[in-house]
């Protein structure tokens, strides 16, 4: 194994730290949201539906934005913004598409909270919780694959 693999330019560190930390928090937040939303889907709890909604809105969404912008920051430091490199393009595409899906899941969970608050206790959040829960589950799978690609950096 070449020692070259361990050498990185010095000005990568801060954006890399932000990128990695935010990415890890994003995965943690998605797991947390999934556990709340699937539990809410099962027992119709308003409290758990609200916790899932807040997990997405307060933690996952900011973490996703921080991951995306820190990634762009690293690319700009290295003049790679316009580079046609597979793993960078996958990173941009997954965060851009992921942002859309996280917003959809957040809105669905938010609507489920409103619905659950209106109906009788135990009525649950309806389809909104189910939609949000499955979108979040798919995002967890997606970002597991993306994390692997970021590590292996295929050309």
């Amino acid at each position, binding site marked *: *194994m*070449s*020692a*070259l*693999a*361990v*050498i990185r330019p010095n000005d990568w*560190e801060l954006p*890399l*730290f932000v990128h*990695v*930390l935010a*990415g*890890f*928090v994003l*995965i*943690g*937040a998605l*797991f*947390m949201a999934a*556990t*709340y939303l699937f*539990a809410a889907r099962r027992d119709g709890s308003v*409290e*758990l539906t609200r*916790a899932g909604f*807040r*997990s997405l809105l307060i*933690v996952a969404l900011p973490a996703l934005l921080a991951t995306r912008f820190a990634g762009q920051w690293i690319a700009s430091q290295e003049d790679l913004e316009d580079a046609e490199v597979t793993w960078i393009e996958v990173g941009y595409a997954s965060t851009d598409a992921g942002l859309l899906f996280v917003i959809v899941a957040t809105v669905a969970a938010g609507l489920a909270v409103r619905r659950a608050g209106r109906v009788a206790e135990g009525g649950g959040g309806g389809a909104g919780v189910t939609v949000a829960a499955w979108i979040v589950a798919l995002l967890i799978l997606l970002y*597991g694959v993306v*994390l*692997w690609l*970021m*590590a*292996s*950096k295929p050309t």
Partner: protein
Amino acid sequence: MLRGAVYDTLLGLHLLSAAITFVTLVMFSAWALGAPLTRSQWTVADQAWNVSGAGLLIFGVWLALYVDGYELWDGWILGALVLLVAATFFGARARTPVLAALAGGAAVTTAREAMVWHWLRTLAILGILVLMVWKPGA
């Protein structure tokens, strides 16, 4: 930059383990800040901590042995190992009060003792992340 399949696989597994660590950290942090925690969520957070701890240690040490230019006794690697031991200790201390609260079977509210240990564990893990990114002395 030369890369190999073994290095890529080890790094991928090491990073996945680190990401799974944050499943536990984020869930405990949310709970510490007042979010509900149920038994099924506790199981996910607890198992994530066990799996990720083993993964971080095994694949981290393997990487240190595999990569030319890294040695287990490098300061930043030794520091990370010490912090991982500390995080494991703090995590065990954070776990006990939560288990006791969950023994009743209901969702638990914030336990001050568990919170303190959890934040210490979080600081230790963040310290490891700083060492992994900046690699002082490497």
